[in-house]
């Protein structure tokens, strides 16, 4: 009988699941990993809940890094950020394959294997989404000079994009708010960033904009309007490159 390990939908949750499933000694073909929100139960299965354990997760990630290389580690981290119910099991299979090969770093190249291919596809999707958010995220200046940005991405990209902004806006106080997951990334002038629950928005956070904010938003809209060439109008191309779902969060598309 198959045993399904139900883990939390986060990188740590999935990696703990990998650890527990392996540790259960039921045999790789008898176990399956699933993330929590998938509520369609299967027949003839045993369900086992996985309690997320950061230590176990770190152990797994360290092993992946050591035995399968940096590329595999990155693939696992990015794939775990996707909203896809198959991801947990695919990650498990990738790790099983990687640790069985003599040269574990070859596992990510083995695209004939459906799980490896899936992880690779998910990795690309999450990477692409993160890459887009690096450009499409919009900050506004709040009272006190804090830069505040919000988004509702289908992928859990916040931890993937925050390091980029921590480097770029090192001398700024900023907050990026993932409204969908109710998470925030907070950065203080001249130091590192950290993830927090959105209810922990810093004290004194009112959401009030500074006076010059409206001026720069208007200037930016002016710029975006006049940079387009009317004779080359091509909304289909624009929509391909900048899908509509991003636009409610972007200054130049807000009325």
């Amino acid at each position, binding site marked *: 009988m198959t045993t399904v390990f139900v883990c939390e939908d986060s990188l740590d949750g999935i990696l703990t699941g990998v650890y527990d499933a392996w540790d259960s000694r039921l045999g790789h073909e008898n176990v399956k990993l699933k993330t929590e929100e998938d509520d369609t139960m299967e027949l003839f299965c045993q369900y086992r809940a996985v309690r997320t354990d950061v230590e176990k997760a770190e152990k797994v990630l360290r092993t992946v890094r050591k035995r399968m290389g940096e590329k595999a580690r990155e693939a696992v981290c990015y794939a775990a950020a996707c909203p896809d119910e198959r991801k947990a099991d695919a990650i498990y299979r990738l790790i099983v394959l990687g640790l069985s090969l003599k040269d574990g770093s070859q596992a990510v*190249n083995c695209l004939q294997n459906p799980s490896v291919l899936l992880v690779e596809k998910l990795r690309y999707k999450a990477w692409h989404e993160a890459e887009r958010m690096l450009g499409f995220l919009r900050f506004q200046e709040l009272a006190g000079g804090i830069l505040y940005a919000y988004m509702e991405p289908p992928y859990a990209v916040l931890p993937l994009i925050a390091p980029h902004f921590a480097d770029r806006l090192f001398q700024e106080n900023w907050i990026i708010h993932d409204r969908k997951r109710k998470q925030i990334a907070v950065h203080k002038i*001249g130091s590192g960033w950290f993830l927090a629950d959105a209810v922990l928005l810093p004290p004194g956070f009112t959401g009030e904009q500074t006076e010059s904010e409206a001026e720069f938003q208007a*200037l930016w809209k002016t710029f975006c309007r*006049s940079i387009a060439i009317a004779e*080359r*109008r091509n909304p289909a191309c624009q929509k391909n490159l*900048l899908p509509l779902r991003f636009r409610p969060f972007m200054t130049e598309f807000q009325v």
Partner: protein
Amino acid sequence: MADGRIAVGAALSEKLRILADAAKYDVACTSSGTARRGNGSGLGNCVAAGICHSFSGDGRCISLLKVLYTNECIYHCKYCVNRADNDIPRASFTPEELCRLTMEFYRRNYIEGLFLSSGVLRNPTYTMELIFETVRRLREDCGFQGYIHVKAIPGAAPDIIERIGYLADRMSINLEFPTAEGLRRLAPNKSRALILTPMRQIQNRSIACREELARYRHAPQFVPAGQSTQMIIGASGETDLQIMSVAQRLYDNFGLKRVFYSAYMQVNEDRALPALPGGPPLLREHRLYQADWLLRFYGFEAGELLSEDRPNFNMVFDPKCDWALRHLELFPVEINRASYQTLLRVPGIGVKSAQRIVKARRLGSLDFADLKKIGVVLKRALYFITCRGRTMYPVKIEEDYITRNLLYVKEKLPPELRGEVTYRQLSLFDDGMPLSAGEQFVLTAGESGAAAGSLWERSSI
């Protein structure tokens, strides 16, 4: 001209509107080529791949704050909207205004940096001094670490170009037209020599700088993201072969990072300019960009793609497909054995798929189903490849046959590749596929494409 001039104290937004509008015909808006981490005190960093921050209504990327310093100009380039005798509103930024705009836009993550070009005020050197002052202020006073692209004006003193080069990430000088004759006719104030001299200067300086960098880790960088240029397409009656040959020479001899092609846009009425009733030649521009990619990433040369008796690209097929159809003697290639360079030349296989194929086949041989998953465009590739010695289904390696099929790809994509299930109704009168299953040819890898081709011909009833 003076009557259209905007007063010095005009609203910033009005200036921005005019000067962004005047800069929109410059194509380059790339922010790639430099990787620079934040320095801990200033603002910004650079990502090697570049970042697109938005896309305008014409589908082009907005990555940089692309503006002119001024749209006042003493030149009379016939095609240019800013030429001296055009009656349009004129405006100029000040260095402070540009710095403030760049910094504030950058903080809000609107842009990757600044793209600064200009009309010619008084003379080229004077204008470049103004640009230099802006860029210097931005880098030194504001501590800006983001991307800066500066357009050099032909005829400016070498000294000022060099000084700007140490502050900018990318510089570009527009070639304007692929032929010297076109340039003479349509841009009377510019000449080929005036354009190529600073281009050569930038090239030499950055080579020297790279050597210094190898020796001293903290040597200052000169135009680290390289230089680019831009040509107008369809205004001076040039052929695609001329354009591609020029591009090839620029890549080979001048070490350019990018050559941009800009479909000619009719903004001025002039006897010397062609009328374009059908709008700008956008498809032609598209084909040129496709060919440009073939030059840079696929190992093609201009002379392979076009020739004196076929000087223009086929508008129906992309340049690579067109090339493959004229070189059927080289096909089919065996996916599991062909070299990376050979794979790159197969229509329907791009850089990414070729890399994936090369990696994946080390761990086991590949079949058509694998190729589909890897991302190969089988509807184009299937006429040119074999997997384990077999073509996907019986095809003729024959120009007319492939051409006909490529033009109607939708109907011809075999059903087993559309879905996962591989059942197909047997038909006695299937005229599209003259071979029965038993007659399917197994092409051994050793057989040359030409021999295979003749076999197929025999089988076409």
